[in-house]
């Protein structure tokens, strides 16, 4: 069937206004915060699950795939329609349907912005814990698809630990509920597998999230070290002592250099690394933990420890971390954000390996990451105008992923596999492991219906578009997050 037929059917089902098909409109939806691109044939903005179901049915009839898109802040190409087809944008599905403070849950549509849930819950002393750095912009639907994390996931877990149920549109267009509002629901935990399935199993149209009480006391510490090795030893020591702070973040010298002119955080110009540590809980527990953390840092030669007890002071200590990625844009024309995980005890050695590899490849790297759970984010700076630089930086990325896997870790901690890393999946999973995962896809009847080309290794590329677009790695500006 022709594209014009697809568009006509979508217009009839969703309304003309909510179907985009002009080339200049479609261009906006061909990318996210990653380096890959793919042009959809049509973009629809449905208002509810029934409209999503109609769009899915039409795409099916026309034999084209469907890719869901939230705010487009993803870092693994999750929202990119690698094989064209229909992009379903959840922007209009942005209602908080229900907020039940007594049962500490909220039912929200997928287009709701992460931070808006916490804002709505704040009057009840509640909040939604997962806090991707993009939380002012990213949508809960995208968070669910990617099982998004964030600094405070060290203590509270990622998105999957806070989702109780989902309304989905399945590949056959059926709208159904998985899980529910209660702690236990009979049957297989299908909610648990749809979260993090990167949009390949179903389109999520409602999310039941768990809300937490705000902690009584929060203490933020910023520990400044001369060398990264000291800071990473401190991380290992804190975790090794059995302490799990709410957040435990690291920034290295290159990151601080980039941040300082903007944020004026007061990082000493010759410091090698800082740790940002947050402890929460009853004031008695928080204080004790803060003291213990400070003492470990001092024993490992922290040259200075700053403590934030008020919200204002804490915001100041966090400002450098939160503005880090945007500021990095100053240091190089482009940079490539990596996401890997290692056992926390191996932090010092693997970080050494990362710096060594970057030096060998001739790239500067800025490390700003969730050190407490071993989730590395090396940001490799390069200039895409230099011939061959793009391929070289991708090769470096592959080598760093290898370091993580060889250390017993994973190829992604929170950004997802997406398109870029699907061929690394076979480094950590056997053919049998992947075959079992594909059975789940078969059970959902999804095969290549939803977000094709993602997660699983395949020889098929993100079209011919991909190789061309890969050569033009996107410039990431001040609104980038990690």
């Amino acid at each position, binding site marked *: 069937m022709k594209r014009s037929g697809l568009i006509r059917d979508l217009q009839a089902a969703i309304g003309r206004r909510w179907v985009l098909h002009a080339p200049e409109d479609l261009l906006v939806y061909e990318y996210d915060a990653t380096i890959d691109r793919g042009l959809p044939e049509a973009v629809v903005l449905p208002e509810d699950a029934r409209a999503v179901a109609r769009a899915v049915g039409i795409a099916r009839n026309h034999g084209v795939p469907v890719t869901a898109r939230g705010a487009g802040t993803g870092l693994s190409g999750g929202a990119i329609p690698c094989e064209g087809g229909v992009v379903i944008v959840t922007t209009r599905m942005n209602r908080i349907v229900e907020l*039940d403070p*007594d*049962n500490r849950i909220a039912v929200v549509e997928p287009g709701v912005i992460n931070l808006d849930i916490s804002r709505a819950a704040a009057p009840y*002393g509640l909040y939604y814990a997962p806090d991707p750095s993009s939380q002012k912009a990213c949508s809960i639907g995208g968070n669910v698809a*990617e099982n998004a*994390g964030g600094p405070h996931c060290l203590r509270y*877990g*990622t998105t*999957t*630990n806070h989702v109780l149920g989902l309304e989905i549109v399945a590949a056959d267009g059926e709208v*159904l509920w998985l899980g*529910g509002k*209660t*702690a*236990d*629901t*009979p*049957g*297989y*935990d*299908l909610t*648990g*597998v749809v*979260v*993090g399935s990167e949009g390949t*199993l179903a389109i999520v149209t409602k999310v039941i999230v768990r809300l937490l*009480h705000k902690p009584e006391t929060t203490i933020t510490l910023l520990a400044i070290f001369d060398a990264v090795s000291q800071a990473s030893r401190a991380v*290992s020591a804190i*975790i*090794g002592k*059995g302490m*799990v702070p709410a957040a435990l973040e690291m920034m290295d010298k290159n990151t601080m250099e980039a941040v300082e002119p903007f944020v004026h955080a007061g990082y000493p110009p010759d410091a090698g690394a800082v740790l940002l540590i947050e402890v929460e809980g*009853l004031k*008695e*527990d928080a204080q*004790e933990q803060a003291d213990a953390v400070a003492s470990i840092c001092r024993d490992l030669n922290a040259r200075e420890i700053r403590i934030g007890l008020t919200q204002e002071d804490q915001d100041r200590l966090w400002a450098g971390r939160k503005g880090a990625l945007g500021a990095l844009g100053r240091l190089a024309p482009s940079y490539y954000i990596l996401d890997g*995980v290692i*056992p*926390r005890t191996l932090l010092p050695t693997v970080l050494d390996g990362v710096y060594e590899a970057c030096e060998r490849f001739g790239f500067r790297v800025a490390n700003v990451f*969730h050190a407490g759970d*071993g989730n590395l984010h090396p940001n490799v700076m390069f200039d895409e105008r230099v011939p061959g630089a793009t391929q070289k930086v991708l090769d470096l990325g592959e080598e760093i992923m290898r370091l993580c896997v060889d250390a*017993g870790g*994973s*190829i*992604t901690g*929170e*950004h*997802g*596999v997406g398109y870029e*890393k699907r061929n690394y999946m076979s480094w950590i*999973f*056997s053919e049998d*492991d992947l075959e*079992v995962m594909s*059975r*789940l896809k*078969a*059970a*959902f009847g999804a095969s290549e219906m939803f977000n094709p080309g993602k*997660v699983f290794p395949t020889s098929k590329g993100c079209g011919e578009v991909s190789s061309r677009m890969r050569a033009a790695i996107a410039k990431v500006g001040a609104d980038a997050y990690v």
Partner: protein
Amino acid sequence: MIAQATILDDLSAIVGGKHAYPADESQRFAVDGMTPQAVVEPGSYEEVAAVMRYVSEEGLAVIPLGGGTKRHIGNLPARYDLALSLSRLNQIIEHEPADLTVTCQTGISVPELQRRLDIHGQKVPLDGWLPEQPSVGGVLAANANGPSRPAYGALRDFTIGMRVVTADGRITRAGGKVVKNVAGFDLCKLYIGSLGTLGVIVEATFKVMPVARLQRSVLLSLDTPGDACALAADLYRRGLALSHVQLSGAGDEAEYSWLLEIGVAGSEGAVERSENEVAGLAPGLNAQPAGSDVSSTDPFSGEHFDDSSLLCRFSTPPSRLAAFIGDVQGLESPVVLAEPVTGVVRAAWPETDGAMVLERAREIAARHSATVVVERCSPELKQRIDVFGDPPPAFELMRRVKEQFDPKGILNPGRFVGRL
């Protein structure tokens, strides 16, 4: 159907004669009165896989078993040829205390795992139900979370990896060994609570946590479940250092006694402060201290309740818990054990006309938007009911999952939701 002698010969060839034997009369491997033809105890993952390839080829129905403490959960088996005991797979594979992770085989008992972790001042946040010795695998398969769930999370939160032998005998991995990992579908979630119907979980990796420096309990006696739930909600809202809050009730039509057990754990300062706040709030609710003789035994273990009892597990919205308990209490006065923070309640009727009570209990649950699972009842009643109640909305999808993972229907056939 192949002869028992042949099955034993074939299995002996895989695991050695000592580890394949006819199920004895001791009922150790009986499930709802059904006894298998044979018991097999593989000593390695490869042997589990070989056994599964064999049963898959022969079309035998197999029930994986650990400590056997959760056999009463689930529907009647449609068939039961072989008990696959994981008791020999009881090793800790890897424990790196400084990484706060542990990997163990699933035949290890929860108390044994805890004992081994305790040497390093750590634990898995699993509640031990002494004197029973549930295996790690059994607890995972049954998704048996205890009262510490609000404080430390549920199994699905702290299980980060698994090795699972598939129905057709392949050793597969799900998740990994690092605490944060989003690579691939999160199959661990699928296996947890699947009651051994999708694969045989042979290894699991958990996040561990330090044992609290101080762990104490406060026991209060209260007049009504409403007071107890209000107190629990208040304590939780204050963010006190609670390890668990559990409400138990028993009595007759004339009088019920309610006990609220509040576990406090953490630093000295936090524990003391928490205890003080409990003490400060208690009088307002007419709550009386009831000593500190806290029992760590499961009041619903087989010791106290056998298959002539009816034991139901409800999951209510926490805001409805008190009203729900009130209604259930009026239904032939069951013994009640509730977690006010999660809204999970178990109620047991020692001797009863199970069918009538169950029907009314389900009505009450529906009224309060609660889910119900029958955890224990007589085999006669089991023949007439689905212990999971009406199939959930996504049942058709669940059926397709089962079909994909166990196309021949050999893993625990008939026992799961909708008799999958």
